[in-house]
Structures are given as structure tokens and as C-alpha cells.
């Protein structure tokens, strides 16, 4: 049986991990490769690196970060931030990403998703979808969340669930759905948003934005998410990934835990046969 994934997210700027509160007020929190290796040892199922300030000038930094993280990481790595073209995606994949996440560029030019899927396969293409709650609560869940782009700076008028469904048809193999309202608030995921997107697509859905407690992750999985992403609760070591997975397991959610229970995992680069 496929297990629920617990995914630490590294928000990276200029090759350093920072963390966002509503995408502003960033605070330095460490070295990407060191943090990724720590999370791997704690039982992370994959790692997401989002370059929160990816620009053409920042691209070299971003590729260097991906190479450094890849060299220590023996679990999947998704990278997003500023991906606008097949060439951008290819550069990240060649540097060591397993999947690339596309956000603004996919809204501006949805066929990019198809181009990426045709070239790299749907399993390499993640749609990152940022949304906020809007409008009339009687309009139904699908009409109650609007997609935002440019790190939340621009509203699109697109409904979250319809955009997710279209993106999956076009070639996105996974939807990473972030609540802009909840991000950094520590008030839990937007379960309505997650449930609406999870119902709308046949591909896996990753919940993001607002997690502060293992209960929040459990609630998102019960709302229909296939994976849960969080940043600050892991960065601050409030709750280790291991502890979170034990909590999920205790509540009947299948998670990967054998690696951890059989023996502690030394850092990958120190392992010899």
C-alpha cells in the first residue's frame, strides 16, 4: 500500500535556507544540503526546495544548491522557483532534481505543462498552486478559492479546483497546493481547499501552508491529501519528522517507518557497504 508522504520544504534564497511568513519577513535558517541530509536521516519521504527569489541572475545559485542537495540525498527531490521553460526544467533535472514545480509560468502559458510532460514524463511535472479563499461561501468549494501567482502578489480570477483539474489534464503529475491565507499562520492547512483540489484531480495532491502541529498534518491527509509539506515546524525542531510519522501511524495512516525503526540511518555520504 502506498504510504502518506511527509515532506520538509526548504525555502531557499541565494543558496541559503530561509523561511517565510506569508512569503515575507524571511529569516535565515541554514545550509540546504545539511538540512536536507538531516531531514533524510529523520525519515523524510522526499524534500522540496523552493527558490523563493529565483531570477535569471539567481539561476547559478539555484543550480549549485540543487547539486549540493542531490549529492547527499537518496530520496526524491522536487525543485521549484522561476521555472518558465523546458530549458529551465532541464537544467534543474540535470543538476539533480527529480521533479520540477511550475507555478506562475503555467498560469501564463498552460501548454508549458504539456511540453514538460512530453519531454520528461508526467511524474517529473508538479503544478505549484497558490490560492486564497474568496467570495460567497454559498458558491461551493470549487468557486471559493482563487489562484494567485507571483508569490501571491497577483490574483488570477481562476478557481483553484478547476485550474488543478485542467493542469492535470495538460500534464501535471502532481499538485502542490498552498493556502496563501494560512501560510506562516500556524493555524493548520486550509482543509476545504485541499479537499476541493483532491476531489478535482486523479493525480497526487500535496498539502501546504499553515502546518504547526502533527494534528494539522493528520487532518490534511484525512481531507484527501496524499502528502503533507511543512517547513517551520521541522526547521525549529518543534516536532521531528520521526515524531510526526509516529503520530500519523498511531492514528492509522500508513507511513514509511521501517528505516528508522530497524536502525538509525547514518548520513548517506558516510555509508559504506
Amino acid at each position, binding site marked *: 500500500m502506498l*504510504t502518506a508522504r511527509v515532506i520538509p520544504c526548504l525555502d531557499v534564497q541565494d543558496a541559503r535556507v530561509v523561511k517565510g511568513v506569508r512569503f515575507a519577513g524571511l529569516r535565515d535558517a541554514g545550509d540546504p544540503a545539511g538540512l536536507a541530509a538531516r531531514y533524510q536521516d529523520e525519515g523524510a519521504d522526499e524534500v522540496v526546495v523552493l527558490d523563493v527569489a529565483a531570477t535569471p541572475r539567481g539561476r547559478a545559485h539555484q543550480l549549485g544548491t540543487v547539486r549540493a542537495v542531490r549529492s547527499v540525498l*537518496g530520496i526524491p*527531490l522536487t525543485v521549484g522557483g522561476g521555472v518558465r521553460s523546458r530549458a529551465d526544467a532541464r537544467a534543474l*533535472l540535470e543538476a539533480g532534481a527529480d521533479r520540477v514545480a511550475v507555478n506562475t509560468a503555467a498560469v501564463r502559458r498552460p501548454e508549458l505543462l504539456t511540453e514538460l510532460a512530453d519531454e*520528461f514524463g508526467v511524474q517529473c511535472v508538479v503544478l505549484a498552486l497558490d490560492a486564497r479563499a474568496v467570495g460567497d461561501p454559498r458558491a461551493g468549494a470549487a468557486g471559493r478559492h482563487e489562484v494567485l501567482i507571483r508569490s501571491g502578489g497577483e490574483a488570477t480570477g481562476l478557481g483553484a479546483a478547476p485550474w488543478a483539474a485542467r493542469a492535470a489534464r495538460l500534464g501535471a*503529475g*502532481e499538485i502542490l497546493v498552498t493556502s496563501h491565507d494560512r501560510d506562516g499562520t500556524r493555524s493548520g492547512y486550509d482543509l476545504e481547499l485541499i479537499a476541493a483540489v483532491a476531489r478535482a484531480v*486523479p493525480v497526487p495532491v500535496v498539502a501546504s501552508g499553515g502546518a504547526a502541529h502533527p494534528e494539522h498534518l493528520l487532518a490534511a491527509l484525512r481531507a484527501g491529501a496524499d502528502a503533507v509539506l511543512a517547513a517551520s515546524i521541522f526547521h525549529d525542531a518543534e516536532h521531528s519528522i520521526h515524531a510526526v510519522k509516529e503520530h500519523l501511524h498511531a492514528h492509522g495512516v500508513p507511513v514509511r517507518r521501517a528505516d528508522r525503526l530497524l536502525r538509525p540511518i547514518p548520513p548517506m555520504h558516510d555509508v559504506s557497504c
Partner: protein
Amino acid sequence: MSRSVAVDVHVVQTGVANLASVEAALARAGARALPTLDPAEVRDSARVLLPGVGAFGQAMAALRAHGLDQALRGRIAADRPTLAICLGLQLLAEASEESPGVSGLGVVPGTVRRLPDGVRVPQLGWNTIEAMPECTWLRSGCVCFANSFALREPPHGWRCAMATHGVRFVAGLERGAIVACQFHPELSGRVGHELLCRFVAAGTRAPC
């Protein structure tokens, strides 16, 4: 195995991007990845890894364009250490629903089929595999998948590991020195690392 002895693994470069994860994982297992499109190398070298990201039809076309289909069949017939990953496993089969009308390498009987509706496709993440007790390469454990297609029937003449995602499917195959994984050992943490170490040690005297 001593870290100081670099073991070479020739990696078939079918033109589809992303060998970086495989190369990094081989490095952690003490091996050097050497990308190749040379049929003689693919047929005769000590260890060959057939990776696979991309579509069945494209990958078979790339193999045929370089004469690597015959080289791989020859290599497998001669039982030289070979590790096929993800699409690499599917390419060993006769055909795939992903690319109707395209013949696979035909080393493994059966047709690869799309995973069923009713579960998330692609299958992304960690799933439990059960290896037959007689398996020598594959071990039961939790490993990492990223696939929309899979072989469903255990093929005659091969030892198997099986898993379930909506339907039972072949998670791994082995026969002699040939091992094929529907999962990604390079992304499967310690379990995957240990499999790569066993493969890297193939044909050397070092125990692993």
C-alpha cells in the same frame, strides 16, 4: 568494499534527461557512472545500468537508433550484471499500453499496462514490496516509486517482488545477474542504497 576502489558502471544514455540522481547514488555506493551509447560497451562491459525516465516508445526508438536493443538482448542472454530501473524494467517487456504498436526488448514476457483508475496515478512515493524468498537481489521493504505503468503478471522464468497500487504489480524482477526494479533504488533511501551496493559489488570479490 573499500571506498578507494572505484568501480565503473556503464549507464545507458537514452537521451532522456536526469541521470543525476542515478550518478549521485552510484557515487555513494562507491561506483563511477560512465554514460554510454556504444553498443559494444553496452553488450560487454562488467556492469550496465539501464535507467528510465520518459515514454516507452521514445526510449525504444532511442535504443534502436544506436543499436542498443540488440546489445542489451545479447548482454542479458549472456547473463552479464545488468540493473534496469523504472521504465528500464518496462523496456524489457514485449510491449506497453503507453506506446501501442511499439515492441519492447521482449526479454520478459508480458505487456506493461496503465495503473488502474481509482488510485492516484502517477504512483508517487513509498510502497511496500514483497520479494519471493528465493530472490537474491531484491529484498522486501519500503521503496520509492514514480510510475503510471507497470507489469501486472509475474513473468514465467523470473523471480519477482510484488506490490499493490490499486492492483498487484511487478515491483522487481531478477534472473541470474539481471535485476530490474519498477521502483527507483537511487531514491529509496537505505533500502535502495543497499541494492545498489550489491549491484556494484557484482563480479568483484568484495562482499557487500
